[in-house]
């Protein structure tokens, strides 16, 4: 085995790569086989569930680079996961702690129940007392260990004078324990150790599922492509290039931005010219030409030519970081949302505590026996312990989120589903959300000498507009001489001995004989008529259907865009959206959303850009495509991995059905209480009845939630009518 061959060297480094192309066991075998024999690799293990590769490297030098090259070769390109993300994932070890607590309380529930069944079926006197004693010895440490999550959370809520579902839970569990200890020492007949342990067991399962859902969504997010720039090229005063970490950039440092990379900080260009794609920063759909002296925000993508620029601000003061800070402010506003379970707890907890107290007083007045009165009052609190109520929400949410995850929609947490179900309005960003960001020609090109020449020039440029012209017109390539690309202007070349230019109209006009009105890029032969190529944005798949379906479901749409008005109007006309606002800054978007909330609307914001980040965090609920900026994805409640926008109505359908299921679950829990509470007040609840009633109601709630998984929604044509009813 490999580990035995390699003596443990002084140097060992664990790295984790993400490789999204791992899809089956044979990929795992292939990766492990080809990496295991590489020099410098001590251990390798691919993880199919997380689509990751865990590596232990035994050499300092270029082992990692060789591994990445090899992965690229065998068709499973991997990327290093940032250690900060990994430690953020690992730091939250609540999930493992909860799983351990589930196991421990499961063990306890099993054994205590075994002894309790013996007591219920007739063990008496000394046997019964010793069984009670053994149950107590098992139950006490286990409940203290496993139920600590509820005690801590309940204490946290009480200290802030709040009420949550954990308060009645913690109270019921601790009272059940205290009463049982007292009864055991007294040699009493009825103890509730089994109730305390099984309650803990059931509730912990619900809590664990809730955490697991979040953990799964988070590790799926870590695998997504990152946009934030973590390193940059510095041009040293001697003219050499060297890599610097983005954090180490200081104002005044000269940086080289090669074509195809994003700007790491806010910059002023000192040499070179290029076109920038600012769509993720401002929402503008058209690339912007920049030249020496222009200032550029962090996060813009350099499209055509390399440029040198001087850093204006360090990373933490750049546009990107500023929008992150705006985000933090906006999220505070959302934290006022109270989850449905906690709202229920605010009604439920005082009510049952009042009933418990009234029972105590009633029995004390009626019988004068305070021990009996306390026993009955505590048994009321035990049977009303909101086990079913506490499971009602998380189980439904877990089922719904695993359903959505299978459809390619990730959910950050359960409250997002609750908020989505109550949304009243859909607010869309345009560039990158309703449209897929790549332009197409508005009209098809016929085979004319001009068009052939334009397509030939276009084929030689990497600019997105040029590429779409080349793709639209597949003419036989003409021979070109003296071909030159002028970054920020266009492409120039000599075809049949005539000079021709394709690019910015003002630049093409320098050689054209006649100007042409219109929009889009221009083409002309020297001295000849200029020709324009009007452009159109392509709508994302399913955009029109999504807007229509949402309208039918009672969510009228509205566009908030940072782009120019004509471009917005064109998209709005195609989608039949009446409300549009163009040319908005990020602050304007936030202001519009706040205005909507002031009108009692609950907006669903769908957006992807940096300029949407604050809006995503401000909106009642938000979604973003996987292609969004990292900041956008971090701010959104839902991230959809599929290309089409049909993910939005699909998520809405599931959210509304989940809300309906949660309501049914509450109904079941209340029906249970209507039966159990009168019995308990009358003093007829024995530990056996409590055990049957409580597990019965919990199972009913879980079974009802599982129905969410059963009925299928056809992904292409979601039927929202039944969900909306």
């Amino acid at each position, binding site marked *: *085995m*490999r*580990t035995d061959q390699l003596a443990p060297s002084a140097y060992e480094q*664990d790295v984790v790569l993400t490789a999204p192309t791992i899809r*089956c*066991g*044979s990929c*795992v*075998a292939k990766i*492990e*086989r080809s990496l*295991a024999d590489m020099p410098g690799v001590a*251990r390798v*293990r*691919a*993880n*199919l*569930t*997380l689509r990751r590769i*865990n590596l*232990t490297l035994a050499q300092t030098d270029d082992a990692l680079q060789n591994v990445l090259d090899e992965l690229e070769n065998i068709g499973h390109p991997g990327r290093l996961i940032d250690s900060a993300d990994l*430690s953020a994932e*690992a730091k939250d070890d609540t999930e*493992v702690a909860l*799983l*351990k607590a589930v*196991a*421990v309380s499961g*063990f306890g529930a*099993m*054994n205590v129940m*075994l*002894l309790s069944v013996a007591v219920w079926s007739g063990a008496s006197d000394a*046997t019964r007392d010793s069984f009670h004693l*053994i149950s107590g010895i*098992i139950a006490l440490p286990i409940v203290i260990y496993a139920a600590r999550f509820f005690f801590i959370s309940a204490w946290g809520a009480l200290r802030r004078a709040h009420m949550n579902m954990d308060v009645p839970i913690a109270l019921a569990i601790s009272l059940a324990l205290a009463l049982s200890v007292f009864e055991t020492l007294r040699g009493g007949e009825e103890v509730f150790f089994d109730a305390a342990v099984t309650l803990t067991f059931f509730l912990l399962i619900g809590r664990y599922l809730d955490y697991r859902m979040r953990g799964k969504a988070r590790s799926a997010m870590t695998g997504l492509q990152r946009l934030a720039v973590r390193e940059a090229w510095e041009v040293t005063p001697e003219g050499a290039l060297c890599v610097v970490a983005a954090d180490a950039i200081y104002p005044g440092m000269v940086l080289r931005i090669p074509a195809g990379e994003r700007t790491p900080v806010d910059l002023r260009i000192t040499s070179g010219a290029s076109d920038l794609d600012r769509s993720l920063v401002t929402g503008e759909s058209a690339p912007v030409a920049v030249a020496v002296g222009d200032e550029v925000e962090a996060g813009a993508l350099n499209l055509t030519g390399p440029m040198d620029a001087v850093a204006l601000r360090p990373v933490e003061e750049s546009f990107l970081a500023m929008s992150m800070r705006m985000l933090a402010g906006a999220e505070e506003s959302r934290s006022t949302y109270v989850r449905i379970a906690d709202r229920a707890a605010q009604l439920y907890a005082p009510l049952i505590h009042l009933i418990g107290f009234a029972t105590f007083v009633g029995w004390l007045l009626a019988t004068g026996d305070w021990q009996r009165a306390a026993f009955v009052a505590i048994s009321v609190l035990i049977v009303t312990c909101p086990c079913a109520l506490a499971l009602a929400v998380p189980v439904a949410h877990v089922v719904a989120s695993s359903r959505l995850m299978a459809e390619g929609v990730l959910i950050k947490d359960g409250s997002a589903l609750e908020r989505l179900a109550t949304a009243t309005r859909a607010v869309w960003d345009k560039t990158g959300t309703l449209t897929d960001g790549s332009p197409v020609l508005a009209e098809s090109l016929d085979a004319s000498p001009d068009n052939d020449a334009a397509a030939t020039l276009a084929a030689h440029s990497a600019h997105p507009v040029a590429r779409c012209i080349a793709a639209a017109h597949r003419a036989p390539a003409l021979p070109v001489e003296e071909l030159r690309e002028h970054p920020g202007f266009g492409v120039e070349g000599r075809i049949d001995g005539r000079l021709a230019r394709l690019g910015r109209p003002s630049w093409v006009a320098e050689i054209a004989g006649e100007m042409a009105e219109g929009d889009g890029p221009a083409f002309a032969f020297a001295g000849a008529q200029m020709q324009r190529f009007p452009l159109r944005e392509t709508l994302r798949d399913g955009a029109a259907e999504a807007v229509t379906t949402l309208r039918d479901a009672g969510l009228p749409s509205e566009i908030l865009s940072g782009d120019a008005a004509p471009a917005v109007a064109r998209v709005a006309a195609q989608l039949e959206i009446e409300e549009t606002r163009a040319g908005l800054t990020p602050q304007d978007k936030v202001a519009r959303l706040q205005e909507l909330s002031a009108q009692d609307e609950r907006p669903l914001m769908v957006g992807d850009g940096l300029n949407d980040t604050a809006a995503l965090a401000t909106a009642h609920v938000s979604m973003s495509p996987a292609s969004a900026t990292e900041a956008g994805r971090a701010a959104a409640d839902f991230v959809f991995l599929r290309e089409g926008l049909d993910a939005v109505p699909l998520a809405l359908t599931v959210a509304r059905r989940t809300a309906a299921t949660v309501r049914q679950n509450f109904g079941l829990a209340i029906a249970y209480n209507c039966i159990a509470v009168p019995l308990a007040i009358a003093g007829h609840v024995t530990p056996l009845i409590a055990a049957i009633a409580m597990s019965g109601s919990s199972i009913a709630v879980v079974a009802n939630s599982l129905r969410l998984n059963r009925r299928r929604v056809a992904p292409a044509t979601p039927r929202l009518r039944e969900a909306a009813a």
Partner: protein
Amino acid sequence: MTILHLLIPVTLVMGLTGLGAFFWSLRNRQYEDLEGDAERILYDNDDTPMPPRKDELR
């Protein structure tokens, strides 16, 4: 009823053994890739188990 003095400790010990086995498997990261482990049996290259969870690392 003396048999109870034997049987109750036996149940507890069996339960604790199961619990201990679960904790051991959790520590050895046996639940981190359930899908992958199901497929691994189909391929006959040697694979080494994951090293146990190291606290200073994670």
